[in-house]
């Protein structure tokens, strides 16, 4: 870490180098960490954290100057004086870590083929309160409430899916509701209440709730917000996920 910094500032005496980093820190605080981008001292805001990064000074300098197209990282080349860019790069180099964490080293996500894209968008439909993602997690999105669909068999009819694990919970003083059991120990019972569009993970003392096998709950309730055509699109996405696993 020091070596890279020294390389960058090779021509500068040591105190000038401190001054460079101090100036860089100031530039960072007024341009990079605010508003909310790289976070206080590079610990991450809504943009990636820079603490522990493994960029070289040259890579950083290019990124700061040219930005990253369509990723929200602006090009500062035309907006900050060259000295400020040099200073901020010098400062960010002090945040470098030994662990490899560079963006170039993260595994590229598999690209979803075109005919599965609309299905994916519908599966997670953010503007309709989450869609299937309210209950199923796929490709690191959604909630882990119900079955992991990665390993699920191929289904063509997403409405009449056979339900095996849904039970009925009857807490004292409440009416019964359909649940998926998340934990059942001597200490506590945890169930996902499926009667709410956003499933609720409820925690009970073991004797405060009665669980019985089976339920009248049907998968068609969960997918009622989708048209048949939309479900067909979603099925294409699921087929691609199953094939790609």
């Amino acid at each position, binding site marked *: 870490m020091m070596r890279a910094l020294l390389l960058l500032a090779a021509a500068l005496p040591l105190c000038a180098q401190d001054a460079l980093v101090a100036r860089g820190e100031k530039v960072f*605080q007024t341009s990079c960490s*605010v508003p909310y981008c790289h976070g206080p001292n590079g610990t991450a805001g809504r943009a990636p954290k820079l603490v522990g990064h493994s960029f070289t000074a040259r890579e950083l300098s290019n990124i700061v100057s040219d930005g990253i197209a369509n990723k929200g990282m602006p090009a500062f080349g035309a907006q900050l004086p060259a000295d400020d860019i040099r200073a901020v790069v010098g400062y960010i180099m002090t945040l470098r870590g030994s662990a490899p964490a560079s963006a170039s080293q993260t595994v590229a996500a598999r690209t979803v083929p075109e005919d599965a894209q609309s299905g994916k968008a519908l599966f997670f439909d953010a503007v309709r309160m989450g869609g299937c993602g309210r209950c199923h997690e796929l490709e690191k999105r959604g909630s882990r409430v119900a079955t992991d669909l990665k390993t699920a068999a191929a289904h063509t009819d997403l409405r009449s899916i056979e339900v095996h694990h849904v039970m009925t919970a009857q807490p004292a003083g409440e009416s019964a509701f359909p649940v998926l059991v998340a934990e059942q120990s001597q200490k506590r019972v945890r169930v996902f209440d499926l009667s*709410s569009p956003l*499933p609720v993970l409820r925690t009970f003392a073991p004797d405060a709730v009665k669980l019985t096998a089976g339920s009248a709950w049907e998968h068609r309730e969960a997918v009622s917000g989708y048209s048949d055509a939309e479900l067909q699109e979603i099925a294409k996405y699921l087929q691609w996920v199953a094939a790609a696993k």
Partner: protein
Amino acid sequence: MPLVRVLALVILSKLLLAGDGATQTDWPSYGGTYAAWRHSALKQINTGNVKNLLPAWAFQTGDYENGLQSTPIAVDGVLYLSTSNSWAFALDGATGRMLWEYHYAFPADSPALAYGRQNRGVAVSHGLVFLGTPDNHLVALNQKTGEEVWKVNIEDSRQCGCNTTGAPLAIKDIVVAGVTGGDSAHRGYLTALDAKTGRLRWRFYTIPGPGEPGHDTWKGDTWKYGGGSTWMTGSFDPELNLLYWGVGNASSDLNGSKRKGDNLYTASIVALDPDTGKIKWHFQEVPNDVWDFDATFEQILVDLPIGGRTRKVMLHPTKGGYIWMLDRATGEFLKAWPFAKNINWVAGITETGKLAGRVEPEVGKRKLICPSVVGAKNWNQGAYSPNTGMLYLPVQEMCNDLVAREENVAEGGPSTGGNWFIKPPASGKAEGYIAAFDAATGERRWSVPATTWIMASILSTDGGLVFTGDPEGNFFALDARSGARLWSFQTGGGHRGSPISYSIGGRQYIATPTGWGSLVGAAHRGLFPDAPAPRQGSALFVFKLPEGVR
């Protein structure tokens, strides 16, 4: 009418009068009461004896991420406190003894969170403590034991780039939670859950969908990604049965070219029916926002003499440096007045509440805009005193250069449409101060400069006092009428939280979080290069008068 009933009515009307917006022995809700005055009716500690105020106890939370930004809730002598990683504590209000603690368990593969880990407080009702989490869950804890009772994933934060940092609001039999996400490609919303079971009661999308009124204020698909977050806490008028919430900026923040139109309901106040989540009225302060000027800060509900009659109004201080006064029954615009000196994004606000002379960012060009994205005031809350009729606000004078940018955004990804370069105003010096305004006329009564700026909330009391803290670690009391500094205590950490007052067994306490942090707080060293860096930390300091002092 039988005498008992007459008496009952007299008592009831008294209660209604007293139930104005001041807190009594408890501090039951985020803004004190649902009216968000942050004013306590307690007056044991007053202008005459505050100089004797001493620490009673302190509590270290151990969670030093992003400072302590919370408002503690006080109910029946117990304080409920939350921290940035969504740890919650119940503390004996008289001694500081910990009754229970809860540490939210993040999933093992918890993603980097778009808006950082921070938390501004809990809500308490129905024997439950409600807590939002940085990965966008709402959790209900048993008020007596701290054990988890229910938990709901509001939306996967990996998908929306949003999370819950604000304090939830518990009203009637529901709990209402907002989300961040206004600078991401995201459609903002407010979610109401049944307090007891956590089941969804309603969701209100801050951007109308196809077929809903206001949808045509967006072009093409931009409504799906238009921001409109709800990251701070709303207010509630039980008599009108209206829930008020401030809606954040439109996104892409600095570039409105793709979303030409007013972009409802971003940068607006919405009034909802709390039983259905249906909108009753709205008032948009900043149509087609291109400055990141959220309308999410406190909505202070007061009854004020306006034009010869008492009106139910809402006072709403905003990032843009104006206080908006609305009729809170109807949403009618009454007036707006500037509370900061450096304002150039508009030339003014017309008598009908419209923006005049907009100065907008341009693609590829640096353009000076005041106030800055941090706002003439940030989320840290002001207070209203019914005794002085004054509104007390933390104000900062600073600007930024804005540069807009063309960008294509991906769902849930960053969508700022440009960037910000924060800088001092023309005077060359960034300034912060506490200012007092006549709440009815907007006239500035006094202002007290800070060494740097004030990023903590303000507490006002019937003792004629105004309390707040500074980044240098001083927690201090001012005379509410004159601004004279009457007392100060060094807590050892910068102040970014919200002080409260409560009483136990006839003894008044003042409690303040301390410990610097937050994303905006990170700008301190850049803005005030000659000032020492504020000390981080995360502790609650509680003060009372020594035995025998009156």
